[in-house]
């Protein structure tokens, strides 16, 4: 599904390489986790896949389902089925969640929304996420707690049905109950859509005990230095990244 070869990424107009020859293969339906110390380029990788405006791909290629996406716009990548659940989701004042989701759904599917179905689906997803139904009328992430912002990301996943989900530190700032709710909803989505692949970026193995990875990668200095299974995550937590 996702094939990254020898990716070199820097901040725009700066020479320093943040990703330095990173390669990664994610197959259909696989769950991969990336761990690594602060500043090693984990979030940069997620943003580079999504085409963030701050970063420039200097070399290498990102291929998604056979399509090289290096030069695609952000919305084109999303329309292919890539979803980045952000570490700190952006507040968009003045735009309600309802307008936002409706626009995203219509653009991704190319169809006008069926309001009755849309409202039913949204309400069901909000109930699953233990989220107040009135949030849909609130402005996107405005006045949301950290946990509510993360749940809003999962709501969007459930409504937009992506093929590749990148969870960039979805566990940061979540209490144990909210983390459990978020993980349960992601697992449920994965069960309903078994071909969906997931890339989890995290510092802690706790979320990996809830969303089980097939592969765990350790990143250091802008590249993947070690790959293993869940035992690698547990071992790394015990001994740290320098061992």
């Amino acid at each position, binding site marked *: 599904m996702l094939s990254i070869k020898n990716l070199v990424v820097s901040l725009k107009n700066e020479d320093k390489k943040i990703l330095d020859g990173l390669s990664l293969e994610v197959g259909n339906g696989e769950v991969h986790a990336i761990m690594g110390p602060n500043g090693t380029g984990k979030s940069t990788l997620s943003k580079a896949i*999504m085409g*963030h*405006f701050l970063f420039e791909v200097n070399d290498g290629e990102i291929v998604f389902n056979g399509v090289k996406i290096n030069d695609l*716009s*952000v*919305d084109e*990548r*999303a*329309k292919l089925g890539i*979803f*980045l659940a*952000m570490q700190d*989701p*952006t507040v*968009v*004042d*003045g*735009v309600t969640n309802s*307008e*936002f989701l409706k*626009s*995203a759904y219509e*653009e*991704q599917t190319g169809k006008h929304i069926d309001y009755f179905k849309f409202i039913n689906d949204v309400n069901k997803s909000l109930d699953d996420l233990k989220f107040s139904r009135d949030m849909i009328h609130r*402005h*996107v992430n405005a006045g949301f707690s950290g946990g509510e912002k993360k749940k809003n990301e999962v709501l*969007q996943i459930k409504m*937009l049905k992506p093929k590749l989900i990148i969870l960039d530190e979805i566990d940061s700032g979540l209490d144990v109950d909210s983390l459990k709710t978020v993980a349960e909803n992601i697992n449920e989505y994965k069960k309903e859509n078994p071909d969906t692949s997931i890339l989890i970026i995290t510092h802690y193995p706790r979320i990996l005990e809830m969303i089980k990875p097939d592969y765990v990668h350790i990143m250091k200095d802008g590249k993947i230095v070690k790959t293993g299974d869940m035992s690698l995550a547990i071992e790394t937590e015990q001994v740290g990244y320098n061992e």
Partner: protein
Amino acid sequence: MNKIIYINNDCVFDINKDETLEIYHYVVDKSVNIKINLNGENAKVIYRLSIISNNDNVCKVDVNHVTSNTESKIICHGVNTGNKKLEFNVTGLVSKDISKCVCKEENQIINLKGGESVIKPNLLIRNYDTFSNHAAYIGEFSKDKLFYLKSRGISDANATKLLMEGLLLGDGDRENVIVKEFVDNLKEAYNG
């Protein structure tokens, strides 16, 4: 007494003791001249200006705290769609013998093209016992907000449209006839 009104023309407002007036002002490509007098104790005003501007326009808003214990909150939002000049000239006046007032203003102009925009936030506060602040922003829509919207599959044009609607319509009643007329003009603005 609390009152909410929707306008699309210049007006002078005299707000009396214990009255609260919330004004939604929607303007398409013309200059604005608004005067608000807070005449009695506990008089309050929330004034929201939303303007789409394609030519040279000046929006002048004057708020005079005539009496102590009065409150004003002025919010002016504009989108400069062309390459001309949009100016906000917003003045809050609290004279020396008037105390315990709240005088706030927030101004924002988004330049969609190469237009020149100016904000003059004037707080003429002569009394020390006043709570006052202002904010002013001129520039493009936030790249972070555009990225977030686009990362969900929304095109650049539609993301800009959503942000324009969010900035200009705010929480105004979209069923109101003045707002509906403004929305039609907004659609024309982002379509062309």
